[in-house]
């Protein structure tokens, strides 16, 4: 493995535990062509020595798939929320600043606690009820026309970048976040999921639900899967509005 002497300069915001103070530590790791953030972090793990030559603990981070489908390696790269796996060193200005996402509580170094997102998915019923105690047989078919755009929504990997960028997701607000709303649209489009559509709508019409969206549009700007989150929310505005009238006058 030749390195031709080039180095990658990293400035990493670290934190030893959930209640510790954070600090910045600098590292220089040998450069290789086509490196991503993860491979630079792996170099630190291989040789945990900081820029001043002092031995230190290896920087902790989370990652699973390394191909931008699992959503685990979200972090701030030069201030922007990115996936560490698909962010290439060659595309970045150095020194490269790494920091944990700010919307979530920090567990250690670059690892954050993403529980609130999974809680939100539970709240909005982001699944499809299938068979009960016996086989209910195949569900209705989905029109190809719908499948094509719904597939784009299904690419959501709960990475949390939309939570990070949204000005209305913070500790002062109860907003459940953009991604879980888009999941409601996905499951309410699915022919079997549609059978519980009104339940999901009810669940997002409460405090911290869809009406907490302020249309800043940041979610769609930062989504690594380019999911049209703002249009999903607008579509849900239409269905919740229609449902609210139905609930008041008809149901």
């Amino acid at each position, binding site marked *: 493995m030749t390195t031709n002497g080039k180095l990658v300069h990293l400035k990493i915001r670290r934190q030893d535990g959930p209640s510790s103070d954070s600090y910045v530590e600098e590292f220089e790791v040998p450069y290789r062509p086509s490196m991503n953030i993860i491979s630079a972090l792996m170099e630190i793990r291989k040789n945990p020595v900081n820029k001043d030559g002092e031995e230190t603990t290896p920087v902790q981070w989370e990652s699973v798939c390394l191909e931008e489908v699992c959503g685990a390696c979200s972090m701030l790269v030069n201030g922007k929320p990115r996936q560490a796996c698909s962010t290439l060193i060659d595309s970045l200005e150095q020194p490269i600043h790494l920091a944990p996402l700010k919307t979530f509580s920090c567990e250690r170094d670059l690892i954050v606690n993403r529980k609130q997102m999974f809680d939100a998915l539970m709240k909005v019923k982001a699944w499809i009820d299938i068979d009960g105690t016996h086989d209910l047989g195949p569900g209705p078919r989905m029109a190809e026309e719908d499948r094509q755009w719904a597939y784009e929504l299904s690419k959501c990997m709960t990475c949390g970048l939309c939570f990070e960028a949204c000005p209305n997701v913070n500790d*002062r607000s109860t907003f459940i976040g953009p991604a879980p709303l888009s999941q409601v649209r996905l499951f309410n489009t699915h022919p079997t999921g549609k059978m519980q559509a009104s339940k999901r709508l009810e669940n997002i*019409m409460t405090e*911290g639900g869809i009406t907490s969206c*302020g249309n*800043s549009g*940041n979610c769609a700007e930062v989504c690594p899967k380019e999911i049209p989150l703002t249009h999903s929310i607008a579509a849900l*505005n239409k269905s919740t509005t229609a449902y609210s009238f139905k609930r008041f006058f008809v149901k």
Partner: protein
Amino acid sequence: MKSDRTFFWRKLHSISGLIPIGVFLFVHFAINYTAFYGAETYNQAAAMMGNLPFRYAMEIGIIFIPLLFHGIYGIYIAREAKNNISAYKYEKNWYFYFQRVSGILVFLFLVWHVGTTRVPAAFGAEVNFDMVASLVANPVYLFFYIVGILMTTYHFSNGFRTMLITWGITVNRKSQNFGKVIGVILFVVLSGIGLTAIFAFVA
């Protein structure tokens, strides 16, 4: 769950910006614009408005209560946001941020505006061309008016754009772009009318 009325109040907040507040804004700007044709025309228009039947009921039900509700609930909504324009300089994030800034400035402007027009009127002052003219003779007050008018027209125009999204009328990219075009046209036209009107009072 049943007692959660968030959806209703938020939707009421959204629609109240157009009906009745937006409608009132159009009427108010139209009356103001008559100043462009001279003091006499303006005084006639102001007198006509002042002599409308059920005036006090309309003022309270169509203007004061909706404005107070929209303003106070709006400040509560704005307080939920942690503005992040320095990290995310996207076009719509600017609109989002400015919607909140303009809302608060309009609220302050209206407190001053009501305090310098309706309050003296309640104590017997006559609402006419000279009342406004003597206010804007002071350059600081004229500046208040210019800022107040521009903040109001921005807040209404951008609010109209987002209202189309909030009610699920503009859903896809194409229609949301169209909504933006309507917003820009509203802002330019209303600002033109509002500024023309206020400068008509400047001697």
